[in-house]
Structures are given as structure tokens and as C-alpha cells.
């Protein structure tokens, strides 16, 4: 079908670099009217960057964008919309306190004189919904709708802007099985109208169910584009991950003796997030936690670190049952938590390096009610030298440090006092290769001294290169634990995507 007609959108040889990362390097993609084109790849493959370029939110460093064969120079978000490209992000762009009809017609309200023509607005919104075969109450505020219904509003909104191509970024991530089927129906309706769909998903079974063609990205490169029938699940997984472990990982120490468990989690449940999770970590062991976004990795770490309450189950450290009312209890017990997002959860950007590092253990520096700053500075200075934190001074605000150095400040917070157990959530996200290697080396030093580590990561090589055992999560449960040497990227992805029966 495709070759005979002209693609509606064609991007060619697109490149985009961010500081330290080549996010896209010469990728191409074309979308024909009425086709569903799936875009797959691991985290960091460059899918979202391409989506942002199509949406006009990011400018590529080089490459051409053709709309119906005509080159378009620079896309702005407004231009992208006018040209007929709509993007539905995972985070919806709806106004919660406006009604369904108002949201669909937002920014394009029909007017009569100075006032909005409500009758016309409702009838146009209703017509859009009807053409999708969707029934939604027009006068209900969007915040009262389910996630699936909100997504339909987003699609209707895109359609009402006369979009010719709709990009859907992980549209099924928050949907139930039945809702996904409904989504597929809507997508087929859109196809029939000649709308091209870019479907981005980690769930390969969905990709096979709905896509006409599949494009695979890996590390910012275009790997392959072909009709769906040309792929098998195994092919696809190989193409997505097929590379040797590029990053340099240190030699991990041998498995520690498993005499006493350090951390023992039993039947931990946080409603809607994790379900009946049990896991043991031994002293001196690094356990990797793999899984897709939303699989419950972060929730599990937050539960162990006392950051969020757990509904049921128990957490034991060195045989003592912990009753965690908050992070301070976990810290007092010897559990540290290096959070995923250092800027919003890990650091106080407007405070100095010194003040950030000593925050969890300020008690140590208080004598007769007064903080001894000299003692503070001395301890932090030692640690900063040890961790090679590059900062002009300890009084520098952490806001002004690079990502890698900020991450080292976060680590320093938890190394000032020796922790028995450390939860790492995405320990090396967004930092350069050099700092990564230093952090890996540090983790090895920690386990050599008997600390236990549970490390959640979306980066496959990191999970494989830095874990002694690997627990894979899928929909809030640990579905498999690989012992050392057993895991392969393909096998992990099969468990993480639910492709492997448990």
C-alpha cells in the first residue's frame, strides 16, 4: 500500500544532540495517510526526542522534514498543529476543570459576536466524538473522567484540529485490557478516515496487534523499518537491544555468603502500585530491579525507604522488623534512598554543598543546640575529595553544579554516615560517562564493605553490568529473579513486558 502514495510526513536524516548525549543520529521516518506506524526502542533510543521534534517542541540539529512532499524549515508547536500534526503525550494536556466539550474545542471556540457560541461548540464537539464512535458526556468536567476517557478526549481534540497525523506516546500505559481494545477500535476508525498514527509502546504484543509497519530505533540510530509481518517478537527484541554492553563496568566482587539476610521484604503491598512483593538482599550484594516505567520499581524502593506508606507486608533489616512512619525512621535504621530525580527529590538546589550533604545527619554536628560549622565543613571536605566532587567551594549552591557532580552530592549525603542498605533509583540518569564510571566504582566499594544495594534502573546494560541478581517487575509484582549469569537482555524484556508466562 504505502509505496504508491506519498507519505504525509517524512523526516529524513534527523540529528539532535544534548550536552553529553547524541539523542538522535541520522534517523528517518515516514508516515502515510491511514497507516499505523509503530515506533519501538529501549529507553534512551531517541523516540521521545523525535516526538518532540515532530511536535515542534525541539529543533533538530540537522535533517529535513517534508509535509506532503514539501520541505518545512523550522517547526514551531503552533506550526506543527496548523500543518496537521498532533501529539498525545503520556501526561495529558487537558484542563481538568473545563468540560469535555470545552476541552475538545479549546483555543478554537466558535464565537457569535463577543461571546462563545455554546450551541455550536457543543454540536461540533459532539460531531467529533461521534465520528470516533465514542460516547462521552459533553458537559462533564474532564477531571471526573477515567484515564481512558480522558485519552479519548485528547484524541477527539486532536481530530478536531484537523490533524492528519496523530502521534501517541505510550497510549496504553495507563489503560486496562478492555480499554486498550477500545483504543484500538478508535485507532481503526482514525485509519479509515485517512489519519496516520505513530504508535509508541513498550508492549510488543500491542505493536503486533495494531501496527501496519514497525520502525526500530536504538541509541539514537535508525535500525530497521518494515511491515509488521516481517518481524517476530524475538527479532524485534534483538533489534531493540542488540549491542554489546558498551559502557565500562567494574569487576563485581563474588557473590557474598548467604547466611543472614540483610533486607527481607515479605508480601509488601501498596494498593495500585505494588502487589505482594517479597525479596531478600544479602550483605554485600547488589540486586538489580528491572521493569518498564510504571511497573512498580520506584514504588517498591519508596516503600522500603519509608517515603510512602505501605498497606500490608513487612520489611526486616538484619532480622528486626521495621515500623516506618516516614523516611526518618528508615534513615535511623540505616536505610538510605538515592532518589530518581535529584532536582525535585534529592537536593535542595538553593542550599550549599555543605548544607545538602549534612542534612540527613545534622544531629552529628550539633553540640549544645548549635551546629558546629567547622566540623561540618571538615567532614564534607573529606568526602568531597574522596568522591571527586568538582565544585569551586563547599559553599557553592548545588544549583550551579553539573548533573554528575549533583549526583555525587546526593551520594555524599548518604555516605557521610555508613548506611547498611542503600536503595538506588536510576543512579546514573542524565550524567556523563566519566561520572557514571565513578559511581559504579563507588557501588562496588560499598558492597565490598558489606552494604547491601537494591538498584532500580531503566538502562539494560546498567542492570546487567552492575547486578549480582536481577529481579524483574511487571505490573506491581516481581515476576522473576535471575541469579548471577542467568539473565540476558532478551529474557529480561520478555518478563518485563509480560511476554513470558509466569
Amino acid at each position, binding site marked *: 500500500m504505502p509505496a504508491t502514495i506519498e507519505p504525509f510526513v517524512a523526516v529524513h536524516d534527523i540529528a539532535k544532540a544534548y550536552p553529553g548525549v547524541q539523542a538522535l543520529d541520522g534517523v528517518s521516518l515516514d508516515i502515510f495517510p491511514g497507516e499505523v506506524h509503530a515506533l519501538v526502542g529501549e529507553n534512551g533510543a531517541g523516540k521521545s526526542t523525535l516526538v518532540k521534534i515532530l511536535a515542534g517542541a525541539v529543533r533538530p540539529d540537522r535533517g529535513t522534514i517534508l509535509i506532503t512532499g514539501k520541505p518545512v524549515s523550522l517547526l514551531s508547536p503552533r506550526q506543527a498543529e496548523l500543518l496537521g500534526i498532533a501529539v498525545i503525550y503520556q501526561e495529558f494536556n487537558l484542563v481538568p476543570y473545563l468540560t469535555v466539550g470545552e476541552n475538545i474545542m479549546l483555543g478554537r471556540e466558535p464565537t457569535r459576536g463577543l461571546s462563545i457560541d455554546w450551541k455550536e461548540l457543543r454540536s461540533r464537539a459532539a460531531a467529533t466524538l461521534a465520528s470516533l464512535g465514542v460516547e462521552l458526556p459533553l458537559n462533564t468536567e474532564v477531571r471526573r473522567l477515567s484515564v481512558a476517557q480522558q485519552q479519548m478526549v485528547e484524541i477527539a481534540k486532536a481530530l478536531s484540529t484537523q490533524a492528519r497525523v496523530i502521534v501517541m506516546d505510550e497510549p496504553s500505559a495507563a489503560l486496562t485490557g478492555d480499554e486498550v481494545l477500545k483504543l484500538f477500535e478508535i485507532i481503526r476508525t482514525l485509519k479509515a478516515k485517512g489519519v496516520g498514527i505513530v504508535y509508541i509502546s513498550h508492549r510488543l504484543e500491542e505493536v503486533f496487534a495494531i501496527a501496519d509497519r514497525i520502525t526500530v530505533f536504538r541509541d539514537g540510530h535508525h535500525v530497521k523499518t518494515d511491515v509488521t509481518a516481517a518481524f517476530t517478537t524475538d527479532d524485534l527484541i534483538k533489534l531493540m537491544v542488540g549491542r554489546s554492553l558498551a559502557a565500562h563496568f567494574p569487576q563485581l566482587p563474588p557473590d557474598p555468603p548467604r547466611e543472614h539476610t540483610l533486607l527481607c521484604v515479605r508480601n509488601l503491598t501498596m494498593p495500585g502500585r505494588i502487589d505482594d512483593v517479597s525479596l531478600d538482599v544479602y550483605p554485600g550484594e547488589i540486586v538489580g530491579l528491572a521493569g518498564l516505567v510504571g511497573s512498580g520499581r520506584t514504588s517498591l524502593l519508596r516503600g522500603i*525507604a519509608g*517515603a510512602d506508606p505501605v498497606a500490608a507486608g513487612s520489611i526486616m533489616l538484619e532480622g528486626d522488623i521495621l515500623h516506618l512512619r*516516614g*523516611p*526518618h525512621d*528508615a*534513615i*535511623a535504621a540505616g536505610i538510605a*534512598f538515592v*532518589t530518581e530525580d535529584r532536582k*525535585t*527529590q*534529592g*537536593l*535542595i*538546589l*538553593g*542550599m550549599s554543598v555543605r*548544607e545538602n550533604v549534612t*542534612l*540527613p545527619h*545534622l*544531629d552529628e554536628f*550539633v553540640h549544645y*543546640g*548549635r*551546629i558546629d560549622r567547622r566540623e561540618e565543613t571538615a567532614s564534607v571536605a573529606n568526602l568531597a*575529595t574522596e568522591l571527586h566532587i*568538582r*565544585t*569551586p*567551594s*563547599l*559553599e557553592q549552591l548545588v544549583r550551579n553544579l553539573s548533573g554528575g557532580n549533583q549526583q555525587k552530592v546526593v551520594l555524599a*549525603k548518604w555516605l557521610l554516615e555508613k548506611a547498611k542498605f542503600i536503595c538506588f533509583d536510576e543512579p546514573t540518569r542524565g550524567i556523563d560517562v566519566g561520572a557514571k564510571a565513578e559511581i559504579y566504582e563507588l557501588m562496588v566499594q560499598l558492597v565490598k564493605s558489606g552494604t547491601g544495594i537494591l538498584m532500580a534502573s531503566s538502562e539494560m546494560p546498567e542492570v546487567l553490568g552492575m547486578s549480582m541478581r536481577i529481579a524483574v517487575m511487571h505490573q506491581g509484582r516481581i515476576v522473576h529473579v535471575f541469579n548471577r549469569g542467568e539473565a540476558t537482555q532478551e529474557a529480561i524484556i520478555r518478563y518485563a513486558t509480560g511476554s513470558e508466562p509466569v
Partner: protein
Amino acid sequence: MAQEQQVVEAVEVKTQEVAARKRRVAILRTIGLVVGLVILLTVLNAATHGDFLAPGNVLNVLRQIAVNAILAVGQTFVIITAGIDLSVGSLIALTGVLMAGVMQSHPAVATGLLLAIAVGLGTGAGAGLIDGLPVVKFGLPPFITTLAMMLMARGLAFLYTHGQPIEIDNQAFNFLGSGFILPSLGRLFGIPGIPMQVVIMLVIVLIGAYILTQTRFGRYVYAIGGNEEAARLSGVNVFGVKLGVYLISGALAGVASLLLAARLNSGVPQSGQGYELQCIAAVVVGGTSLMGGRGSIGGTFVGALLIGMLYNVMNLLGVQSYAQDVVLGAVILLAVLLDQLRRQYLTS
């Protein structure tokens, strides 16, 4: 190894250089500020024919700002946690009439004084807890909880007094608000002594500054205002600290009320109207960010002093009172605007 050593040394040298440069910048800035202030004061003094810097007048300014500065110290704690306390003006009225009432029913000087202080500070602190509890427990905006307290406290003050002032004839109490100590020292400058109000204000400013800069509680106040979630995950007792700042603000409203009631020799249900905004103005002019995480008691004191001096100069120059408010509003706007521009310049 040797190379690493060199790198470490190089970093240390660089650290020292940067620190030295920062110190030079800081010294220059301080000198600049002092020179600017001296020029300004000299000009103002000349414009008022020497009245402005006369010891009696300086003392007057300090006495006039005492209530506002004390409220502003409490407000600084609250605002650094990114909160706000609108209830302090009304709490002045409520604690004032309650103290007056207690002293009326306990005529003995010592008993009356002690009970009054206990009731004044206790009521203020208690009201502060009521301000803070819904904030920390249910995440209500402090603007709302303290607005509600502002209405309730004012209403209660009127209910308690039926709208009439209650006279205070406890001499020890009145001494706190209008008495002088060290008359011999005062005679050197041709003044009756050091006013109690000023002494109490300075003590509270110093204690406030000490707590904010030297103690764990103070560090946590900044941490919560800078990033509450990061502070919580670092084990900071966010619940207790946030409750604490409202408690401090409420209790200091009690102290401010004590000074005001003692000066008026009565508990007045109408007193303290608009004081919450006056003290917020002092805090903001003093460089504390309403977004939280940044500010100082020293800055707040300077802010209160600037506002007080401005009113004083305008009085000496005979500016009519309605025009004074116009000028004050413009000065607040200008001061905060300049501060913002300076920060943007520094970060760019």
C-alpha cells in the same frame, strides 16, 4: 597517584581562590552599602535640620518599630518555609484583651504580671498551632488557615470585651511597654534611658537570628522552604518544623501584644489592624523570598528599620499621612524590584 594528588591540590588552590574572590566581593558590597547608608542618613539629617539623627529621635524610631520588628521575626520563620501568617494582627488584639482581663481579675502585681505573660504567650502559641495543624496534617494553604484565624481572633477579642478597651493598671506590666532602664547611660545622650521595648525587640531579633542560623531547627526551616520533599526524604521532621514556625509566629504575636498593651495601658480589641501586612512588608523588603528557602532575620530587621525610618522622616518633613502610605507602597515595590533585578544579574 601523584597525578591525582596534583589534581586534588589544584582543586584546593582553585577553591581557595574562589573563596578569596567571594570574600573580596562581599567586603566591597558591605562597604558600598555602608557608604550608601551614611550618605542617605546625612542627606535625610540635613533635610530635617538635624532632627532625624538626634538621639531622642533615633530612640523614637526604634520604639516605633519594636512591635512590627517582633512580628516580622516570627513572620520570617513562616515565610522561609514558603508559608504566610495573616493572623498575627488579630492575635495582638486577642492576646491583648485576654492579658488585660487576667490582670483585672488578679490585682496583685506579681501574680497578675506572670499570669498575663503566660496567657498572652500561651494563647498566641496555641493559635499558632491551630494555624499550622491543618497545614501540616491536611495540606491546607496557610493563607487560608491564617486568614480564618485572623477573622476568628478578631471576633473573639470583640466578643470578650463587648467592643470596649480593658484598662491595665498593673505597673510592672506597663513598665515593660513604656519603661526605661539604665537612666544614667541615657543621660549621656540626653534621653531618659534605654526603653524596655527596644531591649525586648533586640533580644528577640538576636535569639531569632541565632535559631535560624545556628540551630538544626533553623537549618530545617530553610531546607523545607527550599524543597520540602527532598527535606522529608532526608529525614527532616517536616511536620514538627512547620508546626513550630507557626507556633513561634503566634507566640511572638503575644510578645508584640504585650508591648502594645503596656504602651496603651489597656487591652484594645481594635488594636493590631493591618499589622500582619506591615510585618510581611518588613520581611519582604528585608530580602526574604515569598517562595521560601531564602531570607534572614538581619534582613528583616533592616526592613523594619527602613520602613520605620521612612515614616519618621516623612513625619519630620510634615508629609500628610495619606501621602505617606502612597510613598511607602512605592518604596516596597521598588525595593523588591531592585532585589529581584540584582539576583537576575548575579545568576546570569
